[in-house]
């Protein structure tokens, strides 16, 4: 039976239009507006010039445009924006989506072919949206003997843990979702959750191939956590603090990778193993165990797992940048905000419009974000390239690398760091 589009009839088209409009109006009035009212009941509204900004007052912004900029600024500095948009989930998800697209295009170019090409006018740029829509519209099939509560919650937990990891990374001076004094330790506490979630999702699927994949993932992640932590001890020794923002501040003269290259390499390799990227993608080895612990996931659950994976990739790359490549430090390339606009206002023909509270973001924040994004993109490039170049590694080779060679190299790194510290070259009170 071939599905050919039925002929166009104006009556059907108008009927479908009015149906859609009807449902949109019904949903807005019966569900949308009450939901907004309830939410506004609970969020703290910002205070401007001593006046509490109610929704009515927000509507008066149409008549008082000079109130617009302070409202936007106060929204930008609120906690909600920080968690949801920048530097939290929204920024990370945007970079993750960009990473997926860039990975497909980069790999295609390396393999002398075209990647996504037809979705979107320019070289398939809307491919991710098409994939997302496809995954949402698919049926989620759950095996009959699977453990249903855990099967449903495991991917959600995965994304939640990845998002918690993202929330600890500082993007610009003062812009971090959770500024903890023991930030680095919290990072490792969160990383310790990932093997548990993987083994839960593998076990709950109640099938042979996910079982093998889950066991392999457990071995891999646990055995590479130790070199990961050890390789960072060099950085902690040199800075004396676990707070991620302060680690970045202390790299203002030099980057740690210049003095601790071995630690950076060990961290990079352990990072590839934690992320299950090729060459370490055994838990998802397609030719041996169908799809490893992801075998039984279909539809949007699979989409959630992919989102979690790529959020983790962004977070690890950002952590590498923060620890070894100097975070947001970099020469100032952003021009300063022109001062006349603050004092005089914007010249628009004969009139001069006064816009109070204008510099919404500071020059340091823009500069810091720019350098951070550039460095993270460079690190992500180096994470993506091995996918096209190396085959998959075997489990016994992986365990021998993780437990023997990387731990030895990490210890050598610690000795180098201690040597540099006690020789008075680096660290507080040192030469640099």
């Amino acid at each position, binding site marked *: 039976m071939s599905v050919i589009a039925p002929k166009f009839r104006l009556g059907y088209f108008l009927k479908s239009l009015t149906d859609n409009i009807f449902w949109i109006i019904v949903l807005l009035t019966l569900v949308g507006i009450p939901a907004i009212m309830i939410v506004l009941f609970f969020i703290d509204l910002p205070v401007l010039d001593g006046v509490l900004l109610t929704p009515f007052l927000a509507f008066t912004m149409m008549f008082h445009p000079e109130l617009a900029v302070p409202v936007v600024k106060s929204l930008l500095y609120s906690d909600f924006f920080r968690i949801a948009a920048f530097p939290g989930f929204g920024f990370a998800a945007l970079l993750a989506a960009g990473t997926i697209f860039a990975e497909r295009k980069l*790999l295609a170019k*390396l*393999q*002398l*072919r075209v990647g996504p090409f037809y979705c979107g006018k320019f070289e398939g740029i809307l491919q991710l949206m098409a994939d997302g829509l496809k995954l949402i519209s698919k049926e989620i099939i759950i095996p009959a003997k699977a453990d249903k509560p855990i099967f449903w919650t495991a991917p959600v937990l995965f994304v939640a843990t990845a998002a918690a990891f993202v929330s600890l990374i500082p993007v610009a001076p003062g812009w971090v979702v959770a500024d903890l004094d023991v930030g680095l330790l919290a990072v490792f506490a969160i990383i310790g959750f990932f093997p548990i979630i993987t083994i839960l999702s593998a076990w709950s699927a109640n099938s*042979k191939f996910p079982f*093998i994949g889950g066991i392999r993932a457990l071995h891999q992640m646990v055995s590479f956590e130790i070199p990961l932590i050890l390789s960072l001890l060099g950085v902690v020794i040199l800075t004396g603090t676990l707070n991620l923002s302060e680690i970045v501040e202390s790299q203002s003269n030099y980057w740690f990778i210049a003095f601790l290259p071995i630690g950076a390499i060990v961290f990079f390799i352990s990072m590839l193993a934690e992320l299950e990227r*090729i*060459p370490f*993608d*055994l838990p998802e*080895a*397609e*030719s*041996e165990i*169908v799809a490893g612990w992801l075998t039984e996931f279909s539809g949007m659950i699979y989409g959630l797992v992919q989102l979690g994976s790529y959020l983790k990739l962004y977070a690890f790359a950002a952590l590498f940048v923060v620890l070894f490549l100097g975070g947001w430090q970099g020469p100032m390339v952003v021009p300063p905000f022109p001062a006349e606009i603050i004092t005089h206002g914007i010249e628009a023909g004969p009139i001069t419009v006064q816009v109070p509270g204008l510099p919404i973001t500071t020059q340091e924040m823009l500069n810091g974000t720019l350098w951070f994004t550039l460095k993270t993109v460079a690190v992500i490039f180096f994470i993506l390239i091995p*996918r*096209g*170049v*190396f*085959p*998959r*590694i*075997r*489990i*016994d*080779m992986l365990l021998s690398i993780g437990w023997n060679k990387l731990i030895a190299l990490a210890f050598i790194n610690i000795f180098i760091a201690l040597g540099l510290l006690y020789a008075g070259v680096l660290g507080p009170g040192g030469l640099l």
Partner: protein
Amino acid sequence: MTARLPPGLQLEKVDDRIMTLNVGPQHPGSGHMRLIIKVDGDYIVSCDPDPGYVHRGEEKMAEYRNYITNIPHLERPVIHDSCNILYPYCLGVEELLGLEVPERAKYVRVIASELNRFTYTLYWLGIYGIFLGHSTMFMWPMGDREFAIDLLEKLTGARVTHSYFVPGGVRNDAPANFEDVCLRQINYLEKRLKTYADIFYDNPILIARTEKTGVLSREDAIRLGTTGTVLRASGVDYDVRTKEPYDVYDELDVHTNVLKNGDSYDRSKTPWLDMLESCNIIRQALEKMPKSGSVRVKLKPNPKGGNDEVYKRVESGRGSLGVYIVSRSKPEPYRVKLSVGSFRNLICMPYLLKGEKLGNMPAVYWSLNYWPVEADR
């Protein structure tokens, strides 16, 4: 168990430790064949290959068709190596009917046969790469295969299943400037093949993964009757093109690549070295080919052989491929038997996979140069 089992069946004792994995036809790591693997932790305890998923009865069907109509059928077991599987059939029928093939036809046959070796081996290499998780090694051979397939399309008219060889020669002559295009594309293909060395054959991860796995010693290789690249990777210098030359192979300089160790790494490297050798053979054949001449001997309608039988062998991508034809003075052959390299090499699989780690299974299995469709015929 009080019920009596029918004779011939036995109960299997189930061990708690051993898990049976069905690396079956619906699996990204098996081709179209079923392997029943019993695993103890990470070690394979026993492997039971189960061929026959794509058995079509080619040999039986050949008994109902005459010598010419058999050609589109007998080339289907290996669709991209179709010239090589028709080669012994055509040589056999030519001997039965007493036909003399012209010189130019022999050279064109050699060129087509070597081009088919490219298409088959690159396809095999692509799948070997993806079995090991190397996606680039899947894309590059598939893309480079286009050069050989493009040449075959210009020559024979079809990309795969060429139906090009007939008893008496080939079906049509090469088109006008085929030699120049062929030379240019073969030179570029050789350049591309050499770039595989850096990224695949000298890749330390691949070497660590495939060296010393699935070792087939020289005596075992001879004893089990293996053939083709599997035999040459175990140190035995036997290539049907040099030891039993057919057509014009005795006038061409064919160098056989023999490697010593007999592990998966050597078995994966020998076809690549063979491909580099094929480039030289094609260049020599293009030089020595007579510039004009007929390429086909006219056949009488409904050709019949006498009461005779003939066996001819050819070196295909997988190994020696033999066709045994029995004729009884009728237009149809009485019996056609295909002796294919894949099925002969299949015997090694239970021996080689026992005691291996599960991670080595794809590497060893596919390195035996196994093509499931051909083994099932």
